[in-house]
């Protein structure tokens, strides 16, 4: 029973959120688009002028840009592969009867709450350092030459660190979904003689499909913008070996002061994210119906 009066009041209550978000979204984005058509270097403000698509042409023919696109995708795909497969296995394990289940859950979820700069530095120094790191020590203990993670396989090192942070998220969501699975359905299948693999394939996996989609989409949003982990471990290097788009744009803007070029890169990042977002919105939109 909503009256004219209360509907107007409702609109008034929603307005501040909408206006703020609109300003936050539209104003800077419009400025980014504008800058991307300009020659605009903070060190040489006098040379500022409209140069059309030159920044984009420059950006799109820069080998570093393609390296960054590839690295961005490798980070997303690599971390997703590790966290989804690992998350499903872990969720299945944690769903079994055991002693101290609550404590194990706490142990597993913990890495998610570690701030990115801390986890990156801890992994970089105390685990992946080829001289003093724990992994190097382990390798030496079994007679292998220590692996210099950040120098020889920098992107893989970044993927490992980021995956460690996101595996708990995937596990927790998949476990939540798993626990809503109807136990009787599994038992019925068992009575019908379905083996463990068949039960997983035809009952558990379909049940988890929605949660898996959610995990993939939400993680992708964050993984497209991995930044702190790269900044404090490899600084994008060696060369551009671990530079993703977020880091490239940052370096272009705040290290080389090339506002125009960085803006063009930013717009490319927005387009990329939008493609992903399109699918995510449809997915979540459907859950709103229910």
């Amino acid at each position, binding site marked *: 029973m909503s009256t004219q009066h209360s509907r107007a*009041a409702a609109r008034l*209550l*929603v307005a501040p959120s909408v206006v703020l978000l609109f300003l*936050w979204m539209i104003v800077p984005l419009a400025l980014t688009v504008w800058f991307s058509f300009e020659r605009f270097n903070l060190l040489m403000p006098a040379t500022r002028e409209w140069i059309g698509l030159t920044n984009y042409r420059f950006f799109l023919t820069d080998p570093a840009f393609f390296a960054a696109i590839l690295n961005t995708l490798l980070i997303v795909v690599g971390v997703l592969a590790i966290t989804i497969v690992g998350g499903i296995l872990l969720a299945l394990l944690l769903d079994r009867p055991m002693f101290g289940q609550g404590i*194990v859950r706490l142990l597993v979820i913990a890495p998610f709450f570690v701030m990115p700069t*801390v986890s990156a530095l801890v992994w970089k120094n105390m685990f992946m350092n080829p001289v*003093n790191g724990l992994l190097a020590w382990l390798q030496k203990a079994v007679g292998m030459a220590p692996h210099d993670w950040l120098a020889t396989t920098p992107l893989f090192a970044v993927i490992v660190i980021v995956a460690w942070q996101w595996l708990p998220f995937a596990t927790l*969501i998949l476990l939540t979904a798993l626990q809503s699975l109807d136990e009787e359905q599994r038992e019925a299948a068992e009575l019908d003689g379905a083996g463990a693999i068949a039960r997983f394939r035809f009952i558990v996996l379909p049940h988890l499909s929605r949660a898996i989609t959610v995990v993939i989409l939400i993680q992708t949003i964050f993984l497209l913008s991995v930044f702190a982990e790269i900044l404090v471990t490899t600084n994008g290097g060696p060369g551009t070996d671990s530079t993703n788009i977020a880091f490239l744009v940052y370096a272009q803007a705040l290290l080389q002061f090339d506002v125009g070029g960085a803006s063009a890169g930013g717009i490319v990042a927005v387009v990329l994210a939008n493609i992903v977002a399109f699918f995510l*919105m449809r997915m979540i939109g459907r859950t709103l119906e229910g």
Partner: protein
Amino acid sequence: MARRVTVTQKLGFTALAWGVGMLLFFPILWTVLTSFKTEAEAVASPPSFLFFDWTLENYTEVQHRSNYVRHFLNSVVISLGSTVIGLIIAVPAAWAMAFQPAKRTKDLLMWMLSTKMMPPVGVLVPIYLIFRDLELLDTRLGLTVVLTLIDLPIIVWMLYTYFKEIPGEILEAARMDGAGLWAEIVHVLTPMAVPGIASTLLLNVILAWNEAFWTLNLTAAKAAPLTAFIASYSSPEGLFYAKLSAASTMAIAPILILGWFSQKQLVRGLTFGAVK
């Protein structure tokens, strides 16, 4: 009805799960242990796990050298400030959308969420320049404003999914009794909404505390919260593992404990109600 499991099986699952759990938790445990070592012991080979001379000197040293407390307070002010301001803006909006849904409410919610999908690098340059011109770089105020705007869609969404579950009949009844809009909010809705608001607060403090794009790019020394403070350890001088560990332990401990309390809300909050 639970399936029957033999004790042996249960012990097997227990061992396996604890093993995997400890493995994932190990980097955190190792950081905490190292924070109590001397710098020499921190890089000793073979590494010592428990049998070393426990010391607290790294903690006093970190505070002494880099004024840890100030960065800690920056984190508290920025994460709590942005969340509380966000709640003040979002509670009325979420309330209206949950109980006075208009035709476009759903589109509006989706649009709000879509702002969350914009990668921060897309707006880094203009925000940086605007902040420079307004002298908001390296200020708590500037960072609080940015984090409020980043959090706002999630806060609205979380509150909305909680408010949705409050039965509408109660509101109808209150309205029948002649309660006005204000009375309805204060006396009927608020008491029922408190748990949802508390969960939202908790989750968003955690997210804001760990936010590491804007905090790194918009602060230098003065307003740097712990994320940026810790990053300054990436180019260290001399032996520093133990001090890095002490600083890290202090940075993650409070939020880890909050996080453990919020696991349930976490799933629901971060999936926008799609998984409960």
